[in-house]
């Protein structure tokens, strides 16, 4: 996983709530067996509308998505995260995320940033009035800065997830440090528990 320390970029304001993972990447695109190329399917249905925000030239090249509450609800498809990163996004800012999406994002190097609704709205306003507005997401400081708009907002992320993201660590490698404990646990499991074989 690519480490995430701090990122500065322009943003896309997505003024929609309940953006479910079926919108982020429709099921039709989930048949691929690799992790690559999902950006092509990002918001595929909505992108057919020329006025959709991702199609507006002033937002081309933006790397931060600023969305409404309950972003990434629904299906567990990690392909939604892969689609966002493949398209070029490094962070998504929203008031609340679907649990599985948020976990998937932190496993695949996309930073989910939770900010209050009023702050998210202020960021969207700032980006809409000046699409050149640069936003910095500083994971070390756990803060979002949009200096030109006078916004500086701290965000919460637990220490462990922050450390993993900043180091770009692989969870499996971390867990395998405890493999002896896993083996010991297995020896303690009741014998009547089911096996699939």
């Amino acid at each position, binding site marked *: 996983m690519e480490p995430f320390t701090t990122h500065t970029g322009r943003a896309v304001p997505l003024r929609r709530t309940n953006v479910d993972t079926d919108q982020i990447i429709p099921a039709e695109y989930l*048949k691929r067996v690799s992790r690559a190329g999902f950006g092509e399917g990002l918001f595929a249905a909505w992108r057919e509308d020329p006025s959709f925000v991702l199609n507006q030239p002033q937002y081309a090249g933006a790397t931060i998505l600023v969305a409404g509450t309950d972003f990434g609800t629904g299906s567990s498809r990690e392909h939604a995260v892969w689609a966002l990163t493949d398209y070029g996004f490094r962070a998504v800012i929203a008031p609340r995320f679907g649990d599985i999406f948020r976990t998937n994002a932190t496993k695949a190097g996309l930073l989910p940033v939770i900010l209050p609704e009023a702050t998210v709205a202020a960021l969207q306003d700032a980006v809409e009035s000046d699409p050149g507005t640069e936003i910095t997401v500083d994971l070390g400081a756990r803060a979002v800065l949009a200096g030109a708009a006078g916004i500086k907002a701290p965000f919460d992320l*637990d220490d462990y997830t922050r450390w993993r993201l900043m180091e770009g660590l692989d969870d499996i490698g971390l867990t395998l440090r405890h493999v002896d404990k896993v083996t010991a646990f297995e020896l303690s499991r009741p014998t009547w528990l089911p096996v699939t074989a």
Partner: protein
Amino acid sequence: MNTAVSECETQTRKQTPEGEGVMGRTLAEKIWDAHVVHSAEGEPDLLYIDLHLIHEVTSPQAFDGLRAASRKVRRPDLTIATEDHNVPTTGITGPGVPLSGPGSPVTDPVSRTQVEALRKNCAEFGIRLHPMGDAGQGIVHVIGPQLGLTQPGLTIVCGDSHTSTHGALGALAFGIGTSEVEHVLATQTLPQQRPKMMAITVNGALPDGVTPKDLILAIIAKIGTGGGQGYVVEYRGPAVRALSMEGRLTVCNMSIEAGARAGLVAPDDVTFAYLEGRPHAPSGAGWERALEAWRSLPGDDDATFDREVTLDAGLLTPYVTWGTNPGQALPLASSVPDPGSFADPDERAAASRALAYMDLKPGTALRDVSVDTVFLGSCTNGRLEDLRAAAGVLRGRRIAPSIRMLVVPGSMQVRAQAEAEGLDAVFTAAGAEWRAAGCSMCLGMNPDKLAPGERSASTSNRNFEGRQGKGGRTHLVSPAVAAATAVTGHLAAPADL
């Protein structure tokens, strides 16, 4: 708008004061604690996973990751696979139906590649697979309970958000992404942050004609699609106790639609009777030991929850969705809402968008909404009781000429049981299509789809834009409402016939 659901919310959860002994624990907390392999201050708990279910869509990249790191599957004997999401539900001639060439029902080469990848991965890593056409094949969340693999007190994961289904048997079961699938394959564990606890207590009894699907739709409408975010939900109360195991599976299935990764019901005699004698349930002395363990699982009397919601089941009526998320639901007897009636600006904007997508006008009676497709099936409502409920409505009736109705059993075993009861004959005599098992029209990634502009009454779990096919419009309903709707051609309950 919804008088049936009253909330008494409490934020009374207390931390254990030091030196005052152990506080009571909830069912989910007991399961959690029994599975902690490693815990340390400032880290997520490392949980042992008792059962890992896999399917073709969310697993190929996980197996690639294992190969790239030269890792093995730690416990293939705790892992089981099925082909469900992208396989067709017609042309399934039986075991060994070919994946390619003459006689293959799979026409999409990309789908074929994905199923081939699952078969190759299962063979390489020694995982039991129920392929298309196999008597044990079916939707992953239907076959787990059916086989007796889903048991009280287990931790169960799958790369699918509807894994919450398995909580109906008193298991802690939740959906995960592909990176986590790889983690479980490699280590049989998963690092997890401890969730908050929510109790949803359903008092009273469901009136005649009101089903578990109506109950869960009413719950989601009340707490919203994000209401359960960060929580594990325990469904409690006399109306939940009175549900059959299949009804509980329907309720727990849609926990994720309220934002909760997991939902569960404390095991009781209904659970034990359901499990006894199933192929993977314990037997003999093991059964007695299991029963003893299972009976200790229900939450302690002094256990507390971070949030409590209470409903009166007696006030519920059949529910249907009108919008594009599962929280946008109302009693069938009501009308399409006016977006202007929502005080919250986000909800107002979402309702406006939803009505535009759904092509509905405010004030239209929901019973006046005509559909062209009825889908009976999915991990929500594709079990035998669901098929019986719909067949009970259709027996001696014909579906409207304008309607295409797909009946898709949740597993090949459900299909066989339904045929043994003659339900298939009821459906085909009524004019419906009787299919083989799979996810089918629930998710629009196999040949069973809505065409742009088509409108369905669907017993599945998601009414998102394009969920059942690009441009398709979905109304979520119970099996009974689906059957009545098929007869009349517009949203209807059996009592309307």
